[in-house]
């Protein structure tokens, strides 16, 4: 077994994560929590885009819906967090599923644009449905406590995030190593061939949308409590570049890469916290540079040089790193233009 294989590295990381509250100050604990939350977002995004190949921009919207759903169920209906949190995640999953139906009749660029427009639409709802969402100012989330456990709220919330993140990480790992994961990749790599094996395109894509929405919704519920506050800004378009940058940096079509990407992006984000413009430049730049020069993400570098990081469904990098061979050219984007 390789000493620096994935299993060992993840176990060490888990051990560090478990003792973090004992050694970290409250700011570091908050950052740790953010990494966990964004790992969930990245896995959800990766299942949809990296595995199922669906270029959608609605993840930020699902993140917001999870946060608003969790918060508002507590505020308006007095539900306890223990119910509001899963309910919020399920609402996000349901919305993800619902938007997939009109959106999935479209492919490629049209899917991207209609989901982008949907993300803008949810922003608008958060801003203008003031009776329910409290408008631009947002709202404070109710305090939760972890009684009778002997932990403060930040520590309890951190452990809750850790528990959920570990569970959903394992869930995703199992999922991609199954017929469902293979169906996702089949749809990504060749829709016609996937159909010829009996894979129903609409159902498979809708499933990916629903699962992805669920992950984003769970992340949103945890995020609302991490900030103690929900407002439209937290889920705006900037999230789009963050989420995409995470999976491109970590590695498309890699669950471990999602964790890697989330960790890196959150740390960079914190370093740049003060300057919004700089964040946009850096994350836009990261996205561009990785897409141009390292399409497999950092995970592909690790897989090349360190033993024990192989993954299922990761035979060739999901995208071409080399120009297509002359004999059998893939249809270039430009040629698809011709009507």
């Amino acid at each position, binding site marked *: 077994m390789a000493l620096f294989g994935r299993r060992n590295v993840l176990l060490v990381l888990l051990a560090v994560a478990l003792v973090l509250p004992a050694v970290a100050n409250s700011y570091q604990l908050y950052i740790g929590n953010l990494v966990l939350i964004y790992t969930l977002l990245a896995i959800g995004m990766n299942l949809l885009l990296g595995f199922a190949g669906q270029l959608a921009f609605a993840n930020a919207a699902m993140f917001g819906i999870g946060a608003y759903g969790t918060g508002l169920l507590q505020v308006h209906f007095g539900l306890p967090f223990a119910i509001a949190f899963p309910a919020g995640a399920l609402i996000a999953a349901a919305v993800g599923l619902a938007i997939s139906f*009109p959106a999935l009749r*479209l492919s490629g660029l049209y899917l*991207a644009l209609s989901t982008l427009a949907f993300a803008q639409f949810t922003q*608008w709802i958060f801003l203008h449905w003031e009776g329910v969402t409290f408008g631009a100012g947002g709202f404070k989330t109710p305090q939760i406590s972890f009684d009778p456990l002997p932990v403060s709220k930040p520590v309890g919330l951190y452990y809750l995030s850790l528990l959920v993140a570990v569970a959903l990480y394992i869930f995703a790992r199992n999922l991609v190593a199954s017929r469902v994961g293979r169906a996702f990749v089949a749809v990504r790599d060749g829709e016609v061939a996937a159909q010829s094996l009996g894979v129903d395109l609409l159902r498979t894509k809708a499933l990916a949308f629903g699962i992805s929405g669920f992950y984003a919704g769970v992340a949103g519920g945890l995020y609302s409590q991490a900030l103690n506050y929900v407002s439209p800004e937290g889920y705006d378009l900037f999230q789009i570049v963050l989420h995409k940058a995470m999976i491109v940096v970590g590695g498309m079509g890699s669950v471990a890469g999602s964790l890697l990407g989330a960790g890196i992006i959150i740390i960079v984000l914190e370093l740049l916290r003060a300057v919004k413009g700089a964040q946009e430049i850096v994350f836009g730049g990261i996205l*561009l540079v990785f*897409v141009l020069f390292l399409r497999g993400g950092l995970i592909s570098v690790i897989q090349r040089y360190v033993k024990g990081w192989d993954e299922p469904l990761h035979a060739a990098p999901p995208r071409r790193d080399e120009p297509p061979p002359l004999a059998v050219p893939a249809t*270039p984007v430009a*040629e698809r*233009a*011709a009507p």
Partner: protein
Amino acid sequence: MMLSYILLSGVTTGALYALVALGIVIVNKATGVINFAQGELFMFSGFLAWALHVQFGIGYPLTLVLAIAGGFLLGVMTDRIAFQPLKNVDVVSLVLATVGIAFILRGVARVIWGGKGDYLTFPPITSPEPIMIGEIMIIPQQLAVLAGAVLIMALFWLFFRYTRAGKMMQATADNAKAATLVGIRTDRIYALAFGTGTAVAAAAAVLAAPLTLLYPDMGFSFFIKGFAAAVLGGLTSLPGAILGGLLVGIAEALAGGYIASSLMEVSGFVVIMLVLVIMPSGLLGARRLRRV
């Protein structure tokens, strides 16, 4: 509010959307992709024009020409950085690359020209005072924008109709392979398309600036509405883009005037969803969107 006033302002903003849509359609026709940085290129060109006009005191007509030239260069850069290296790779990488460029442009604009929520005013071209012609209230500024938009549309029409470059772009759009066979260098055509598409957007930005003010986040909403207009027009039709732009502009002015002004912000989304779900080929598009 008077209907005539609403209609006129709808037509004016609609003409701006039409220009943004034209930029999207020009790129899409030639290359088959949507430039997701189109909105930010529009915004950035607007700020460039502001710098030229307000900071360096260059006159408005020359500013317009320089901004169009600057837009053209920005478009060619987008082609060189994102499209050329990725055009044979896959659509996902291409879109992500243009999204990356979009955010870089946003960030640069924010760092140079102001933080979130800061609006820069662009001096009006004509008197901002409304004038009354009979019962109809007219804001000269709007008329100037409308006239400018019509002029620019006419110029691009002439470009496509009569210049060699324009004709070659048409040929490439119709059949990229055949164009290569007859010796058209398609790489240049792609660069030209990105350049021209952004130049139209730059022209729109200079016209829009005095009406809408300038802020780093303005690009996205213009992009979504421009795309709505382009989709309404069928995504590959230039007249369709103009018609679509006017319709989106008028529809949102009516919704804003008679229902609630906040509705104007989501007109783009509503139009996109309606068109894509009900009428995927748009009003004038010959080609159906690819369906599953």
